[in-house]
C-alpha cells in the first residue's frame, strides 16, 4: 500500500515536471481561479467597507421637549436598546453636552458664536442619537418612536428629513450586495468551466497512455492517483505564483486605493484575513483540479 502510494506520488511529480509546457498552461489557467477568488474577496471587502462607512454616517436623532425629565429620556434610551435586532447604539446627549458640542464645532466661527451669545434662552434640546445595524432598520425604529410620541416627551424625530437619503442608501447597498453575489456566481461558473475544460484537454492529450496503462492491468487508482497529485501541484504552483503577483499589485496600489476608497487599507485587511484567503485559494484550486481530472479520466478508465 505504502509502496503504491509512493509510486503514485512519483508518477504525479514526473507528469508535472516532464510536461513543462502543459503544466505551465494549466498553472496559468488555475491562476485565473486564484485571481477570481482574490477579486471576489477584494470586491466584498471594499463593498462592505464602503457600505459600513456610509451607514456609519447615517443616524436618526430624537429631540426631547424642554420639559422632558432626564429619567424619561433615559427610559426611552433603555427601551430602544432592547431592540437588539435593529439598534446598534444609542447615545444620550444632554442640553449641556449639545451646547458644548456646538461651541467646539464652531469655536473659530465668529458668526455662530455671536449668534449664540445673542440668544437669551438655551436653544439646545437634549437628544438621543440612534444608529441602526443597517439602513433598512431605520423605518422600524421610526415607527417605534412614533408610538412613543403620545407620551409627550418627544419634540421631533429627524427620520422624515433623512428618510430619502436613508432609503437611497438602503437601495444602493442592497443592490451592491446583489450585484456582488450575482457577479461572484458568474465568475465562479466561468472559472469552473475554464478549469474543467483545460484539465479535460490535458487528459485527452494522454488518453493513449491511460488506455495502455489499463491494458497492462493497472487499477483505476494507480492511473488516477498521479493526476490527482498533478492537480495538487498545479494548484500550489498557481497559488504561489499568482499570489506573489497579487501581493505586488496590492503593495503598489494600496496608497491609491486608500485615496479612492475612503481610507480603505487593503494591506491591513490582508494581514487579518490573508490566511483565510490563501486557504480558500488552495482549497478551491485543488478541489477544482481534482474533480476535473477525476471526471475527465473516467471515460478512458471504463475500458
Amino acid at each position, binding site marked *: 500500500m505504502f*509502496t503504491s502510494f509512493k509510486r503514485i506520488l512519483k508518477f504525479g511529480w*514526473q507528469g508535472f515536471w516532464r*510536461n513543462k509546457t502543459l503544466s505551465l498552461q494549466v498553472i496559468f489557467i488555475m491562476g485565473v481561479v486564484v485571481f477570481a477568488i482574490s477579486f471576489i474577496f477584494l470586491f466584498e471587502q471594499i463593498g462592505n467597507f464602503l457600505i459600513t462607512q456610509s451607514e456609519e454616517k447615517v443616524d436618526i436623532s430624537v429631540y426631547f421637549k424642554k420639559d422632558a425629565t432626564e429619567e424619561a429620556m433615559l427610559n426611552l434610551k433603555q427601551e430602544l436598546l432592547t431592540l437588539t435586532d435593529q439598534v446598534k447604539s444609542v447615545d444620550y446627549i444632554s442640553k449641556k453636552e449639545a451646547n458644548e458640542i456646538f461651541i467646539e464645532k464652531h469655536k473659530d466661527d465668529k458668526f455662530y458664536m455671536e449668534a449664540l451669545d445673542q440668544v437669551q434662552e438655551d436653544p439646545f434640546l437634549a437628544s438621543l442619537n440612534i444608529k441602526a445595524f443597517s439602513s433598512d432598520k431605520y423605518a422600524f425604529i421610526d415607527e417605534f418612536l412614533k408610538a412613543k410620541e403620545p407620551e409627550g416627551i418627544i419634540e421631533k424625530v429627524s427620520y422624515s428629513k433623512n428618510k430619502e437619503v436613508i432609503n437611497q442608501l438602503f437601495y444602493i447597498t442592497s443592490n451592491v450586495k446583489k450585484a456582488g453575489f450575482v457577479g461572484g456566481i458568474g465568475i465562479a461558473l466561468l472559472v469552473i468551466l475554464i478549469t474543467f475544460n483545460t484539465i479535460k484537454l490535458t487528459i485527452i492529450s494522454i488518453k493513449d*497512455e491511460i488506455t495502455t496503462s489499463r491494458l*497492462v*492491468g*493497472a*487499477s483505476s487508482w494507480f492511473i488516477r492517483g498521479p493526476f490527482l497529485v498533478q492537480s495538487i501541484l498545479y494548484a500550489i504552483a498557481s497559488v504561489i505564483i499568482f499570489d506573489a503577483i497579487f501581493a505586488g499589485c496590492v503593495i503598489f496600489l494600496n496608497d491609491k486605493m486608500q485615496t479612492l476608497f475612503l481610507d480603505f487599507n487593503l494591506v491591513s485587511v490582508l494581514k487579518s484575513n490573508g490566511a483565510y484567503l490563501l486557504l480558500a485559494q488552495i482549497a478551491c484550486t485543488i478541489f477544482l483540479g481534482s474533480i476535473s481530472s477525476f471526471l475527465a479520466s473516467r471515460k478512458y478508465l471504463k475500458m
Partner: protein
Amino acid sequence: MIKFQNLTKIYNTQAGKIVALSNVNLEIGKGELVSVVGKSGAGKSTLVKIFTREEKPSKGGIFFNDINICELKGKKLQEMRRKIGVVHQDYKLLCDKNVEENLCYIMQVVGVGDKAIAKDVKKVLEIVGIENRVCHFPHELSGGEKQRLAIARALIHRPEIIIADEPTGNLDVYNSYEVISLFKKINEMGTTILLLTHDKEAVDYLQKRVITLDQGKIIGDDKKGRFIL
C-alpha cells in the same frame, strides 16, 4: 490453457454488418507457440482485442485457465490482464516514460518491490538486446528497438501467455528475423505464445503450429507449421 468457444464478433456499421469472427473454436495448450495467420481483415486483430478485452464478443467466449475472460469486470479483469503479456501492432508504449520506466511500470502495477524490479529489468533488457537504451524515451528509439521494448514489456512480469499482434509488421527483414528468434527463445523458456502475423517467412522459420483465418473463420490448423494461404 486457452479455449476459444464459438467466438463471434459482428460490427454494426452504417454500411451494414461486418462479421469479423464467426464461430471460432480453438484450443491452445500450455507452452505452445501458435501462429495465427491470415490476410488483412481476416480477424486476427479482433481476436487480440477480444483477448485483451478492448472489445467484447457478440457471441461465445475465451476461456483462460477455465475462466471466461469475456465475463470479467473491474478488479478481476485487471488481475487477468496482468497475467497476459501483449505486444501490440502499434507498440502502445508509454511516451512520457523511458525504456527502463516502461518496463518498471508493468512490475509496479503488479506490485513487485523495487529491488526485484531492478534485477528483472536488467535481465530482460539483455534478453531483448536493448540494454544500451535504458534512459531513452520511445521517440528516441528505432522501429526495431520499439518492438523489442514492447516484447520486453510483455515478457518482464513472467506472464503465462504472450500475445503478439503483427510483431514484424513494421520491421525490416533483419529485425523481423531477430524478433521471431526472440519469440522462439522465450517459448523455449516455457511461455505460451500466440503470434498473429501475415509474415510467411517468420512462420516458416518457426516450424510450429499454424492456424489460418479467413474472413473470420478458421480454415486451417496445421501442426507442422505450414502456411497454407
